[in-house]
């Protein structure tokens, strides 16, 4: 079944304690190539049938109302993905 992916990231100006904790841990396991980490969410919505314009609109609506908190997060992508694609 086709899937729609929704990516949600903490707004850049907002503190991301999760990313901060990971960024602190990376050098301790010897990975020093990174200047920072942000942790967001990735949702995969499985579509029951064809991905019509209407379904895509529903996904966009879900993204901004339910899947993200607009006060602290941005929806960075709403997109249909191919089977086994990304």
């Amino acid at each position, binding site marked *: 079944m086709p899937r729609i992916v929704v990516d949600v990231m903490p707004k850049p100006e907002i503190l991301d*304690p*999760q990313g901060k*904790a*990971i960024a*602190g*841990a990376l050098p*301790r*396991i010897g990975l020093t190539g990174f200047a920072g980490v942000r*942790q967001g969410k990735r949702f995969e919505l499985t579509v029951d049938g064809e991905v019509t314009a209407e379904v895509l609109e529903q996904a966009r609506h879900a993204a901004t109302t339910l899947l993200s908190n607009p006060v602290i997060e941005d929806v960075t992508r709403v997109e249909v993905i191919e089977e086994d694609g990304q």
Partner: protein
Amino acid sequence: MGGPQPVASNNDDSPLNGVTVGVVTFPGSLDDRDAVRAVRLAGGSAVQLWHGDHDLHEVDAVIIPGGFSYGDYLRAGAISRFAPLMEQIARAASGGPDALPVLGICNGFQVLTEAHLLPGSMIKNNHLHFICRDQRLRVENAETSWTSAYARDEEIVIPLKNQDGQFVADNRTLDELEGEGRVVFRYVDGNPNGSRRDIAGISNIAGNVVGLMPHPEHAVEAGFGPDSSARGEVGVRGGTDGLGIFTSVLKKLVG
């Protein structure tokens, strides 16, 4: 920290003299001082161990306590598992029944699974909330280093408090755990978080490494424990069913 900090000691002529249980503190550990108190109330001595140390300071057993190490922001226990001390613990804990006894409570259990010292993993509770309640458990294996003070199938009541307490593993692993008698604790009177097969705690094959989600160290002192006990009526906050976990390991250590 230079060496380990002794924080509790038993009296001089006890057979337990010289036996010490180490309690690991990670940044974000919360129940470390409670675990130290539990060891003391069980009659033993405890020392605090620092996660960044490279030395176990010759402790005879280790408790990895509850809390939110590194905030548990990524996955509970995911970052702590890489602490230098964890390497020492992993090495000392492998090698059969006489290897170092290790107990992981709640976040400590999560650390043990992340470190692959115990199988499976913990995900968010099925109801998605933090839950704090007095929980009834059945002790299904009374032969581990940490459960010998109980009888097989004995029930106990100890507090449960967590957000990511749902134990999951694939069916093959679950069958293996059951088949080898490694399900040590099972939830009774209702599964509080959706854990597979009501599993609350498990052990490694040798039985020296045990992990459980509920908190025995919060049921060791009358007046500050749960309101109930599986052993009958107790006074206000009088439940001490968790004490056996700590006496078990002390008994094992003195032979």
